[in-house]
């Protein structure tokens, strides 16, 4: 059962099946079932994975013979955590949409997007990578635009054109790289071995960086993000922040660092400065937000800024932290967005000033939300602590001041998250009219699972770190010259 191609094909097949299901109830159960099946299919890889730097479970076929383009997939210690993240989060995301009446087409789009995401994380050649990168974009556009709210058309066009522009720049860089080798190829191994001139590396670096930075998003390429997050349906927001932005960070790790090492060394500090600006700026703005979703959008910018910073610190700890924190961030945002969704459905509002005192009628939610919050802030014994500690250690190794400013995420994060908690959970009950029912059923289940992993990864982070260690070290060895 450890066939990567089948793993990749499973969501495509389930998307095709889901297309034809009109009835909401059966659609969501089938979606849940197929996503669980995908998760089950990924278990053999976790068990059979040998934590060294090698690429495992490789498969490749010739795709376009004339251009020598291959369809090449494989798994290493950096891909595996992200594979687990994608396939692990999908059932949770689908489960958290159970309160709504979505038709099969909605879940079909999610499944199709899952296939694109998996291809991004598994691709060992840039052509497949690019295909996955774009394939993941189309469904999320439709999810956000069809089921979103407010001024969704204009906002989603902005989101789409923005990210597409980034992708097409990447395509230009890829085609450029394709022509640099003696043997034309877009294989990862071949691209990494290219001897690019410093000048060539510079502009390839920026073309790649823009594509990834828009997706992540790194300041100042983030302007599409708050609006899109706010106006998307909660499921769309979860997909975007939980999984999709990891594509960008993964791109940095997998493609940018090894292909343009010189440019990374010479421009890394600029990127780091951008990351740090993003961290401070987004944290301050998050503090001023009234809309809970918007607050989380800005907090997301701050957090991924730190993760990208960790990648560019070029320290083993920084990269390890980035891999771990990608998972942590994915888990916690999905959880917190569900909390926001739960409260929104109970009160009909996302406005923090209209919230308050929910802890009294909803004690289970209050406790689980607190656990998630601690994870997001980075309290010891939660997952966030380990990740942020490693990231900051990495940044410290690069330069003390980067670590000092990067560390502001923790402090400012605590400030705005606690404010969030206080506004929502504590104080007098703001909405008296509606009876507040505590979380139950699928809401409780999703938050329990996320809460469990928040603590589990905080107590034994080695479960993930063990997988990626060798690959990260190997990657860094390739960069240093």
């Amino acid at each position, binding site marked *: 059962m450890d066939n990567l191609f089948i793993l990749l094909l499973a969501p495509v097949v389930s998307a095709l099946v889901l297309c034809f299901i009109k009835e909401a109830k059966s659609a969501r159960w089938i979606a849940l079932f197929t996503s669980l099946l995908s998760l089950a299919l990924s278990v053999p890889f976790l068990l059979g994975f040998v934590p060294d730097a090698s690429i495992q479970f490789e498969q490749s076929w010739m795709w*376009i013979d*004339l251009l020598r383009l291959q369809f090449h997939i494989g798994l290493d210690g950096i891909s595996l955590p992200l594979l687990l993240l994608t396939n692990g989060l999908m059932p949770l995301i689908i489960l958290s949409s159970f309160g709504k009446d979505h038709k099969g087409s909605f879940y079909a789009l999610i499944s199709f997007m899952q296939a694109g995401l998996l291809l991004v994380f598994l691709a060992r050649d840039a052509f497949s990578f690019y295909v996955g990168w*774009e394939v993941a974009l189309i469904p999320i556009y439709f999810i956000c635009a069809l089921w979103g709210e407010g001024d*969704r058309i204009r906002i989603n066009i902005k989101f*789409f054109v923005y990210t597409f522009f980034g992708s097409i720049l990447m*395509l*230009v860089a890829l085609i*450029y790289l394709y022509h640099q080798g003696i043997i034309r190829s877009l294989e990862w191994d071949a691209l990494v071995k290219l001897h690019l001139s410093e000048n060539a590396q510079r502009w390839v670096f920026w073309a790649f960086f823009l594509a990834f930075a828009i997706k992540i998003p790194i300041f100042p390429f983030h302007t599409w993000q708050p609006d899109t997050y706010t106006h998307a349906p909660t499921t769309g927001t979860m997909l975007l922040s939980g999984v999709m932005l990891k594509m960008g960070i993964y791109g940095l790790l997998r493609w940018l660092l090894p292909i343009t090492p010189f440019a990374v060394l010479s421009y890394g500090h600029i990127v780091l400065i951008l990351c740090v600006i993003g961290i401070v700026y987004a944290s301050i703005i998050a503090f001023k937000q009234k809309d809970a979703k918007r607050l989380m959008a800005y907090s997301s910018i701050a957090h991924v800024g730190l993760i990208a910073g960790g990648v560019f610190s070029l320290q083993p700890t920084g990269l390890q932290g980035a891999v771990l924190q990608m998972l942590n961030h994915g888990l916690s945002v999905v959880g917190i967005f569900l909390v926001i969704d739960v409260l929104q459905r109970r009160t009909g509002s996302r406005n923090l000033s209209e919230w308050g005192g929910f802890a009294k009628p909803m004690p289970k939610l209050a406790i689980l939300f607190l656990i998630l919050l601690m994870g997001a802030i980075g309290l010891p014994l939660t997952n966030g602590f380990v990740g942020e500690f490693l990231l900051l250690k990495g940044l410290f190794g690069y330069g003390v001041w980067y670590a000092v400013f990067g560390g502001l995420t923790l402090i400012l994060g605590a400030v705005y998250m606690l404010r969030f908690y206080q506004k929502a959970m504590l104080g007098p009950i703001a909405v008296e009219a509606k009876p507040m029912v505590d979380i139950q059923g699928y809401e409780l289940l999703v938050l329990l699972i996320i809460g469990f992993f928040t603590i589990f990864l905080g107590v034994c982070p080695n479960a993930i770190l063990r997988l990626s260690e060798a690959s990260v070290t190997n990657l860094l060895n390739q960069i240093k010259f």
Partner: protein
Amino acid sequence: MGAIITLGILGILLLYLGLYKAKNALLPVTVVGLLVALGFLVLQWDLDAKPLYHGMVLFDRYAIAFSALCILVTVLILLLSKEYFRSISEHVAEYYCLLVLSLMGALLVTAYHNFAMLFVGIEIMSVALYILVGIRKNDAASNEAALKYFLMGAFSTGFLLFGITLMYGAAGTFDLSGLRDYVLATDQVSPLFYGGILLMLCGLCFKIGAAPFHFWTPDVYDGAPILITAFMSTVVKVAAFVGFFRLFGTVLVPLNDFWTPVLLTITIITLFLGNITALVQTSFKRMMAYSSISHAGYMLFAIVSIGAASASSILMYASAYCLASVIAFATLIVVKRRTGSDQFESFNGLAKQEPLLAIILTIAMLSLAGIPLTAGFIGKFMMFNNVMGSYNVMLLVIAAINAAVAVYYYLHVVINMYFKDSSTANQQGLQLAGTYKVVLGIAVLLTLAFGIYPDFIIGLL
């Protein structure tokens, strides 16, 4: 050669069918005739191609592949025509006859080996179209379009002929191999010849609708009946491109230092002009017209940077573009029948009433925009790859910017279909004829198949 003869006979046969009022036989006979022609082409596939009839035509692999594409697209368009032509006029036999004859001209253009044949082919192709564009006699727009097309076409033929004459004056032959020998053998190519190249370039750019010779395109596309527009923007364009490629890609390659800068300028103007004007259109049909200009720009990439993969890329790009265009125009016919307008607004709410049609049109738009897993992406990728092969990074960046612009207007129709509610009172579902379903189904399946596994079309040439 069997194909061309078949088409000629078929044209006359169709006229007789019209004469004897056998209207119901028209479509089946045409389709069968086209398939027979296709059969003749396929049978010739692996033969060692030699110029026929004293070097007049050459049915090599390029000619056969592109001719087959033209015939297939024509079949798809004709299958859409059943009710469409009847709604325009009584005398439907003429349409079929003229379309078939125009297709015959297109086949000659793809297979010419002598300038005489190029000229004859272009004229057969165009004269039939002049009539078809103006076939709605009482419609002022249609008449205007026909006149415009005729005048512009006559101009471009003039340029073409002048170019041919100058080249003949320098080289003393109309034959492509003769011209190639002349270019290769002479150290000092006559200035007349250079003048000839420029004039040929103008004439051919008129035909493919490249800027700044594009002025006729939007008005003619807009004024012509939708199916004729579909035929012009696919079959005629592809044929003209192959004619272009045959001359510049085989004969004139040694002189590319001379014409590449000119063509490069034309390409860049074409890209920007097509995309930016397409951006501000309010009519779907006009948007398709301008976007077809920009696609001509992308296809010119293969000629600007002639290489081993040029022919394959044109074939890939042209197939993707033709399939997507057929879908787009077929949908437009359906929509126009419902609302009576070809503005973007008339697509409002289509996704609710005809979800499948909306999905198919969305896939076509994604293909035109060049998104992966559709044929359009592979086409764009190969075109970009060609340009990079001759180290034209600047052009590549310009193309990338244009591709990002194009996404905006292709999404426009998607937005109308999915996110806006229909304003018309007429909300009942559309009755799609069986042939429409077949055509749309074939086109969308091929678009996806070429996008997912393009090797069987790229590997052809």
